[in-house]
């Protein structure tokens, strides 16, 4: 049988071959359940991996081009020092732009801790200046030295100290997501192989009859392979739909949210989980084909 014919038989089936194996049995339910459960978990692992990838990208790309200048000074000197700092920044090569945060913006930054009613104007807070890097960026060491000399009390924070471990953590989480997907695929292949072996053992008498009448192993195998592949496809499709509904019901990502509230799929990302049933069917196809070959070789 050519590969094309095998593929056509797999997709469209051979009515007689479909009927030679009794349709009932616990292996059918086991395969559907295993594929469904694994697909459900795979959706979440995929969602986690994609979210971690987005966070990693944002932290490593977007925040890498931003820095904060913090100016601590008595209230009566704050305006002068802020203007001086902005002047220094405007003259520094590699700084695209810089601006002092307004009192409202500074209040918003503190709101998660102190609430929205905080009277910022009564507090002696440092003035924050947002610095956006150009490409290529500025010389941080040189800028710090100049600020130290011209704007006493100004501290340049390029976020690198806390950004680096967070980016590393996000990347590790992304990798963990993909490893989870691989493990889920492996576990599904194992379960389907066990179910296929059980089905082949339970139907040893049928295999004996088929051999008696001249059936070749590929014919016998195709009856089992097609059935298990379609069961895995159906189970995984159901699991994927349930998983996607679960992801949709998660809290949506907010501006302040990071990985915990950004687990959903974004835009074209919703297409990716739809590949899970196809991959599950391919895993089942490979696992059952291998199990059938091995089992049929061992049967007399």
């Amino acid at each position, binding site marked *: 049988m050519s590969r094309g014919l095998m593929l056509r038989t797999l997709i469209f089936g051979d009515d007689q071959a479909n*009927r030679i194996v009794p349709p009932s049995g616990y292996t059918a339910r086991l395969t559907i359940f295993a594929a469904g459960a694994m697909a459900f978990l795979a959706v979440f692992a995929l969602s986690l991996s994609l979210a971690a990838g987005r966070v990693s990208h944002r932290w490593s790309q977007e925040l890498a081009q931003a820095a904060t200048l913090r100016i601590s000074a008595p209230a009566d000197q704050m305006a002068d020092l802020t203007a001086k700092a902005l002047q220094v920044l405007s003259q520094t090569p590699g700084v695209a732009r810089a601006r002092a945060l307004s009192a409202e913006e500074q209040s918003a930054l503190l709101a998660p801790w102190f609430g929205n009613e905080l009277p910022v104007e009564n507090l002696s807070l440092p003035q924050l200046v947002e610095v956006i890097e150009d490409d290529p960026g500025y010389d941080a060491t040189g800028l710090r030295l100049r600020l130290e000399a011209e704007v006493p009390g100004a501290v340049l924070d390029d976020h690198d100290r806390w950004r680096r471990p967070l980016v590393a953590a996000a990347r590790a989480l992304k990798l963990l997501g993909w490893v989870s997907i691989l493990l889920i695929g492996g576990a599904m292949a194992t379960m389907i192989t066990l179910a296929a072996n059980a089905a082949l053992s339970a139907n040893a*008498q049928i295999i004996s009859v*088929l051999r008696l*009448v001249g059936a070749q192993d590929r014919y016998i195998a195709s009856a089992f392979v097609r059935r298990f592949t379609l069961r895995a496809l159906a189970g995984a499709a159901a699991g994927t739909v349930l998983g996607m509904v679960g992801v949709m019901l998660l809290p949506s990502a907010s501006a302040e949210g990071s990985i915990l509230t950004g687990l959903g799929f974004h835009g074209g990302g919703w297409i990716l989980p739809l590949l899970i049933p196809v991959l599950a069917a391919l895993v089942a196809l490979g696992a059952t084909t291998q199990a059938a070959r091995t089992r049929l070789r061992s049967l*007399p």
Partner: protein
Amino acid sequence: MERVKNVIELENVAYTYGGGYLLSGVSVVLAPGTFHFLTGPSGAGKTTLLSLCTGALHPSEGAVRAFGADLSTLDRDGLALMRRRIGMVHQDCRFLDHLPVAENIALPLAVSGRAGDTAAANLRELIAWVGLSHRANALPPELSGGERQRAALARAVMMSPDVILADEPTGNVDWEMSQRLLQLLVELNRMGKTIVIATHDLNLIRAAKAQIQTRVLRIAGRRLQLAGAAL
């Protein structure tokens, strides 16, 4: 299909089972169009000998050839193709119990990818020939012993094989049904098929000898002997 001199040949075949010889030094040639009975006491090795002829068992010593090919040289696919030329009727019939009788009889066509050709058109005629037209849609467990044997015979001849091996085909049926099955096998022999029937029913052998030339082979003491004169 090529014309071969001998359908099946066993040359100095031995078969060991449980550490001892069940068959030893067995040599026999089944020529095209001949009719054989294989007799011997229960456990003598009749079923084993038939299984050796189909390649279901492999000899410990010697060679088994079917249509000129040494079965030990054939791979699994080769053996499967060979079995399409050998119709086998087991005493327990061996059906797929979840499929109707007609589909069981047509099974050899299905597994060989010939379900749509002219052989399939002959299915109804074949079912009628074995007298099972009214039972075509029944499931095998619903059939009587005689009906099961006739269905098994119909399945065995579905691919128009050159040889039919029947293992105790009348073991579970009454005398009248034995005669009916014998008539079907005699008809097949007259069509040129080689027939081998393993049985310990001497009356069946006598009934066959009354109407057709047969050769009776007897397994005794692990060896195969010609026993026609004694019957």
